[in-house]
């Protein structure tokens, strides 16, 4: 099992859900408004006067074999329009109940 955390421009939301359903990923946790900035390049998404855009975030725990294509497709989405901003991070899940 892999935990995948995606922090992305709010406007990406529906596209990401589409990718997830295509990959048969059902479960996720979703925060509709999160703020943040990247460490390299890209505009901050702080929802303030200077940087009015906002992020959303999804945390999804997926099977090992689904993780790789999912990350790939997210990357494709990101490079299609880099100015929007999308980052995804994956790590192993040690235990579930």
């Amino acid at each position: 099992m892999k935990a995948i955390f995606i922090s992305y421009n709010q406007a990406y939301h529906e596209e990401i859900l589409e990718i997830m359903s295509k990959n048969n990923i059902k479960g996720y946790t979703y925060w509709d408004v999160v703020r943040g900035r990247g460490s390299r390049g890209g505009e901050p998404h702080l929802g303030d006067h200077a940087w009015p855009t906002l992020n959303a975030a999804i945390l999804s725990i997926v099977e090992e074999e689904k993780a790789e294509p999912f990350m790939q497709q997210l990357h494709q989405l990101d490079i299609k329009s880099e100015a929007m901003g999308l980052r995804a991070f994956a790590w192993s899940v040690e235990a579930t109940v």
Partner: protein
Amino acid sequence: MSIYQSAVKKPITTALIFIAVMLFGIFSFTRLSVDLFPEIETNAIMVLTAYPGASASDIENNVTKPLENTLNSVSDLKHITSKSRENISIITLEFEYGIDIDVATNDVRDKLDMVKSVLPDESENPIIFKFGSDDIPILLLSVTAKESTNGLYKILDDMVANPLARISGVGAVSISGAPVREINVYCDPYKLEAYGITVETISALIAQENRNTPGGTIDIGSNTYSLRVQKEFADANEMLNLVVGHYNGKTIYLKDIATVQDGLEERSQETFNNGEKGGMIVIQKQAGANSVNISKKVLEKLPEIQKALPSDVKLGIIVDTSDNILNTMDSLKETIIITFIVVMLVVFIFLGRWRATFIIILTIPISLLSALTYLLVTGNTLNIISLSSLSIAIGMVVDDAIVVLENVTTHIERGSRPKQAAVYATNEVAISVIASTLTMLAVFLPLTMIQGMSGILFRQLGWMVSIIMIVSTVGALTLTPMLCSQLLRLNPFQGRLHKLLFDPIDKGLGALDHAYGRLLGWAVHHRKVVMFMALAIFAGTMIFLFPIMKTEYFPTQDNSRIGITIKLPAGTRQDITRDLALELTEKFMKKYPEIKICNVTEGAADSDNTFASISDNGTNIISFNINLYKKTEREKGMLEIVEEMRNDLAEYPQIKTFQVSAGGRSGGVGGQNAVEVDIYGYDFATSDAVANELTERLKALDRVNEVTISRDEYTPEYQVDFDREKLALHDLNVGTASLALRNRINGSTASYYREDGEEYDIKVRFSPQFRQSVEDIENILIYNGRGEGIRIKDLGTVVETLTPPTIERKDRERVITVSCVVPNGMAMSDMVTLVKAELNKMEFPMGFTWQLGGTFEDQQDTFKDLITLMIMIILLVFIVMAAQFESLTYPFVIMFSIPFAIVGVVLGLVLTSTPMGVMAMIGLIMLMGIVVKNGIVLIDYTILCRERGMGILYAVVTAGKSRLRPVLMTTLTTVLGMIPLAVGGGEGAEMWQSMGMTVAWGLSVSTLITLVIVPVVYATFAGNGIQGARRKELKRARREARRSAAQLN
């Protein structure tokens, strides 16, 4: 879920809601009635008190003064003026505009109840009378008749006036120029004397003979019959055979001593239409009715009425007030359409995309139509004010939509899907869109609170624009994102023509951005030079141009109507007056081919013609109603013609005074401006002398061609001065003697002759040839109780005297008003300066003062109100901005664009030599809100750049370059939207020209200067702020260094 999110998610609901709003608007548009101005309730109440037999000065002291003293305490009273003339006192209470006249009337009634006991016993109860704009006739019809002149009154009354009066909304219909039928019994005084019969005997006899009497009922056999005596005259000639008495055994019939004429009343008004004798029908509307609707109904009815009339009686139209109203509305509607197209083109050129243009333009009809719904709901009309508010708003409503659309486009270009882009992009700009609408509301909502005349006019403007702005903002936050999500695409296909057209535009705009960036770069590095230059521009305009700017009240409107009142010396015979009237008609008709209809009335009006009897009338008075061809169909302007007519009239030495009123005698807004000098002082002769001197001085100035004095001259009259002792000697008294005199000259109404349900007076008096000289009066025989006949010359003397004129008072002091019409091409402020100069040259006797009144006073009052309002609006705008930025500095910086708006306005008005009137003032007030918008956009983006970490100067230049296009675009839509208003030449255009001019000039100049000065001022303030912070930091560091050094020591 936010409002824009729901809108994007539910496109059908959103679209249909706005379609519903538009449908309501269209429905309202078809239902709204049309008028020239918003309804102005009458603000004057007249109190008429009759005191029969009292002279002017008795009336003044015993009636007018006590009434004035009491009525003066009624609240909201502006002026109290009075006229005391023989037998009657007329007090006019002028209230502030906009008060509830019914409440005022009740107050007045209460006060009158209080004062009643103080009035002389003989005086009658005071009558309250309201006269307002509703009483001004809406239609004047001309009647020409060749054969039917004698029966004209009855024909007109039955077949024209009555059917017209039945139309709902039509008030009084009066006929003038068509004399009323009257049965005249003309007696020969010598024959009367020979038979010892008096006029009174004949009069009483006719009254006794002309009777129908019911005699009760009578039972005959099995039936009951009613019994009647029916001896009313069936023919006037029946009277000739009445037996009036016996003399020497012979029967004397009426025909032996008198003649009977079934004719017309002796004194009447005569009307000529284009030199042809005829009549005039005056139609007034009921209070509160809509004149355009009524005119329409009346005009629809006319062909039907015409068909029923005898073939020689022709009806025509002299004045149709609705004509001007409809033409004015048409030219305004044209202006609105032009404005719409201009704004559309500007948006298209800047955006270069049809779909985007469509999205933005769509907000215009939606918001404008919603304002029409407001008009219908509140019972207002389509009028100059409401329609020009629409025109003003067109350029401003697109601003919000532009901001939203621009941000959505940016998001899409960044790669967002249109749907998401629409929601999130709108979310980002929502606050600033609402804030900029709030600044506009800060300007327009206070407009709804102005008092007085301008308050009535501009309340509607305030509400209309406020509603339009609110609806457009709601539209920009819902409909615009929804449409963006549906219609906008990333990199849409662009045809070759499109490229050919827009590549140069795009390049041009790019070059402009670049040039502006460089200019700004230079300016922020030379802040002192720039500030000094700006200060110089402002100071230069204020010092050199401001003093030569002219002012006025309302511009004079060319409504193709001219009214002229000419007074010949009092007591001039009607024949002489008539000849002059006809001569003038002929002259005018020949000299001015622009005249369509020239209607002239002269003579004394009868009492049943309401319109004529409240306007000036008398045998020496001529009044013209001239209708010109439409403004667009003639070369000469109305004011030029008026001017020339004044010069024409000045050539006639027999004319005592004349008054040529441009725009007809309609009063209110849009007439020619006049400066009135009220001269206060008690003594009659002195005040006459002062007024005459002033008149002479003013007339001596060139260009001044109409000066009138309010006080009438002394009227010559004959008085019969009875000697009481002689009367007593003959067992007579003044009552009997004077009544006998009246019966012989004026006639006594003996009875009424009935025909076809109409009653006509039967008047008995001396034949006209026996009342033509003083001797005729002296020879009148008066019989006493003993049957002795005594001649008037044995009872007293007939003397020629002069009656003193009406005593006029204003604000409880005797006044005489000299009014001077401002000539064509001269501003009112110039005229005021001239008049003041002349007044200062004159030496006023002790106890005499003067004051300027009339249009000038109204102008001063209104300007004072408007300037107060402007200050309040500036403060409100500041508050809104301060709240938006949460800062006091930034709004202050942005406020720097306001002085340059004033510079632009002064420059524009001086260059086009347009006077500053109320309309221009309203334009200036609107500017306060419009010009700061540019500053807000610039400063907001500069702050954003600073927050993103740029240095001050770099941020200023970057922000300027990036915001130039939106600023130019919103400014151009507003400025170009005003230009059709400013240069419009249609009917009524004078009214809104100055407003359009003010906004266009003020906004252009202010924008050009704002684009440089606001960034520069910002840079200065921000720089100072940083330096201050640095200094503080330095001090703190030094302090700490010292402290640590001390610790070390």
